[in-house]
């Protein structure tokens, strides 16, 4: 299983000289399985670059969105394969009693916000509510579960090629809970992350910033580290960087993260800050350094 980060920024695209290293594009992660199955996690602005890079023959893609906040769907309209008639795109996302996934996404892909409508897309596009259970796409086994954020939000676990990826980009498991002491079954997202080869997790705030943002739906550093240690993931990728966090700031932040990680008994090679275009190869016996 190959995991490639195309956007790791939270909330709003943040391009500029001060974010050029970690990147300013919003959430988008490409997952390529050994059999070629292509899964795209979230469709933030990072999906634009990926759509350009994708070979034209990659006609069948699955876009799996965690929720419909703009930073997770904004790139949909700029995804090149959507404008090719031979493409078959399936968009998976959380169900809502209020409207279908198609109708909710169409609020963005429609006038006056968009020059095109969903029905005008030349590709074949299908919308599917994610079952809150388990299902298969190609050789991937997927699991979705609602997690604490603002509004209906899913986290995912993808198991394939003898390894597992947990993707929970927008998540505040610490709200009203004790990540250190509560039983696992009472911690949001615990089962999704448990023992994953790689956990990609919200880490928008420093601890000091989090104190002023409790209830905003995102995690502070200590909570993310504690969550990852308690769920015993093999590797942790800190994700959904705050738009205010420059590259220099994030370098320092990473230093604090490493300290906190070590205090909790974590292996430093298993902790990283998500960086745009970073590729990580997961295999059955994950070698934390086995990446490029």
């Amino acid at each position, binding site marked *: 299983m190959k995991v490639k980060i195309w956007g790791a920024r939270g909330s709003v695209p943040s391009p500029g000289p001060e974010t050029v290293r970690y990147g300013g594009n919003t959430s988008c992660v490409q997952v390529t399985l050994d059999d070629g199955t292509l899964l795209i996690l979230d469709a933030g602005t990072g999906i634009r670059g990926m759509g350009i890079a994708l070979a034209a023959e990659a006609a069948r893609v699955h876009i799996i969105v965690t929720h419909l906040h703009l930073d997770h769907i904004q790139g949909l309209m700029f995804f090149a394969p959507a404008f090719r008639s031979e493409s078959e795109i399936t968009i998976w996302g959380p169900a809502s009693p209020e409207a279908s996934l198609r109708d909710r996404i169409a609020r963005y892909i429609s006038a006056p916000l968009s020059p095109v409508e969903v029905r005008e897309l030349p590709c074949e596009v299908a919308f599917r509510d994610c079952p809150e259970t388990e299902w298969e796409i190609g050789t991937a086994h997927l699991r979705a579960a609602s997690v604490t954020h603002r509004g209906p939000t899913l986290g995912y676990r993808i198991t394939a090629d003898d390894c597992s990826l947990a993707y929970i980009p927008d998540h505040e498991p610490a709200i009203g809970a004790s990540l250190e002491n509560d039983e696992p079954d*009472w911690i949001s997202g615990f089962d999704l992350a448990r023992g994953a080869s790689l956990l990609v997790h919200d880490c928008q705030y420093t601890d000091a910033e989090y104190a002023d943002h409790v209830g905003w739906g995102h995690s502070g550093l200590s909570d993310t580290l504690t969550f990852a240690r308690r769920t015993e993931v093999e590797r942790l990728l800190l994700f959904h960087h705050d738009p205010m966090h420059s590259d220099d700031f994030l370098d320092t932040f990473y230093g604090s993260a490493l300290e906190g990680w070590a205090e909790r008994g974590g292996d430093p090679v298993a902790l990283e800050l998500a960086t745009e275009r970073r590729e990580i190869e997961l295999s059955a016996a994950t070698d934390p350094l086995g990446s490029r």
Partner: protein
Amino acid sequence: MSQKPIELILARNLLSSLTTPAFLVDDHGALVFYNDAAATLVGRRFEERGQMAASDWTEQFGPADPEGRPVSWEDLPLTKALFAGRAIHSKMHLKVLDGTVHEIEVSALPIFATGGTRGAMAIFWPVEDGPQAGGPK
């Protein structure tokens, strides 16, 4: 034990911060949480007891009739809310730790989500005590 659905996790978070006694059951009617305010009525914190099957908790500290006899599980507001899928408000009696029977009011409501019924919660007001601590004066 399996992962609790997010709606129960959030409900527990809310109830744990209330000073009003409250119970939370899962979709099978098992008692999965009660808060510290309820613990003062039933005599022990939830953390010391842990999760209880419907029959167990009903027998141990479920509501009673005016003479202190247990009300059957099917007749509890929580059960009705869970299985009838609607809010229930009623007056009942509760036999507390010291054996005395108190008249209480109960509001129970089911917890629905896109995935189906998740459980139900019940909040109690002792009739004789007036407003709860921290409540409206």
